[in-house]
């Protein structure tokens, strides 16, 4: 077994019997059926868009002591790896659907750095007074008005110079238009308040999805 470092803390590439796995360093049990290799957990790219972004070696930055606001946490698949990465930080995980929230609660009971919030990301005022200013807002909510939602949450919670990762699903913005056209409209809108750092196509793992990285002012 060979362990190769990546540019992100607590994230490694593992070579096991000639096969490569993206993994996070973790003492915790599997959360969504991912494989465990002593002291590491497989980060399944088909289940997590952030995983694909990290695997592509894109220059994203996440630090161990970061405060993170995660919008659209679902049952905590990606949050579980982020919690491994930001092991000295805090993740505020917002999800509004009660079903997947069951899984998120299970994760939060296990991890000291995950704070689960059953709230609607469209109403940041309903968690303003719980969530502090953060270093990163990560958004994966697949909603038509998600950019507006991101802007509002940034206004409430993103520190100056903070960082954003937005997952955009073309189909949920407009089910008929050309994805490329949608993406460029989204970028244009984001440029009003943010600096675009990068945008990455998530094919073939996540069809018609891109990830956009932005900096705040």
């Amino acid at each position: 077994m060979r362990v190769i470092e990546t540019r992100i803390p607590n994230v490694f590439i593992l070579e096991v019997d000639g096969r490569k796995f993206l993994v996070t360093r973790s003492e915790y049990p599997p959360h969504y059926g991912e494989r465990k290799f002593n002291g590491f957990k497989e980060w399944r790219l088909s289940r997590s868009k952030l995983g694909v972004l990290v695997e592509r070696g894109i220059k994203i930055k996440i630090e161990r002591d970061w405060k993170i606001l995660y919008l659209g946490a679902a049952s905590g698949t990606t949050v579980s790896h982020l919690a491994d990465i930001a092991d000295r930080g805090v993740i505020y995980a917002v999800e509004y659907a009660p079903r997947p929230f069951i899984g998120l609660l299970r994760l939060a009971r296990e991890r000291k750095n995950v704070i689960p919030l059953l709230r609607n990301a469209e109403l940041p005022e309903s968690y303003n007074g719980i969530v502090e200013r953060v270093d990163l807002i990560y958004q994966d909510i697949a909603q038509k008005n998600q950019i507006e939602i991101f802007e509002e949450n940034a206004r409430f919670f993103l520190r100056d110079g903070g960082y954003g990762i937005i997952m955009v699903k073309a189909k949920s913005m407009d089910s008929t238009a050309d994805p490329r056209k949608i993406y460029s409209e989204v970028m244009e809108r984001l440029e009003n308040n943010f600096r675009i750092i990068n945008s990455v196509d998530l094919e073939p793992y996540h069809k018609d999805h891109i990830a956009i990285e932005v900096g705040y002012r």
Partner: protein
Amino acid sequence: MKVWYGEIKDDEFRRKFDLDVRNERPLDFDLVGFAIENSVFSDRDEYYETLRELAIKNEERRMKEILRSEDMFIISLIRAYDDALKCVNLLSERLYDIKSLGYEDEESPPVAWLEDRIESLKKLRKELEGELEEKMLAVAPNLTRVAGHMIGARLIERAGGLKRLAMLPSSKIQVIGAERALYRALSRGKRGKPPKHGIIYQHPLVRTLGRRVRGKMARYLAGKISLAVRLDYFSGRIDDELEMGLKKRFHDLKGGSG
């Protein structure tokens, strides 16, 4: 202003833990620093540990409230659907009576009125069913995949909620909706045949099988439904394999029954 660990009023701070906050404007102070300065917590570790524990407790309570009200909503929907169906049937019968007396709508406005309302009730039924399907997929995705949204909703309705359905053994699930038949069988003593026609006998994979293997399929389906409901109630994870096993069993039985 209310934050999760207290209230700030006229520069005065009162400590009180409550996650039900609402502040329309971004805060202009450091939420964590302020709490420690005011000795609400001795350090950051204590701050986050307290918040996390409170959040788990508070959000779990709210989650359960939402889930509870959602399956009750499903029960109301399926009942409204049945009510609409009943109305359609009653009015159609009456319309038939009137028409068989020789009246047509040119000469009798009530005929046209009735036809019109029956149509709109049929539309209502379709709309309710659409809503029901959406709610079922959200509240009980595994049950919906295995049993379908109508049968699934009827099972929830008869059991009195998702939780109660999740607690039933599959032998009980198999006979839900056949209670009257069961009662009759029991009162006839040993010679009464056990009932066979619970709600799940309406399932296409049971209904379309030969009579000799129908019972076997129903027992198998009840087992799958029981697993599906428990998954829905306790974990929320979606298991695609449940549905596949069902089709295989159906084809095996179909082959066997000739």
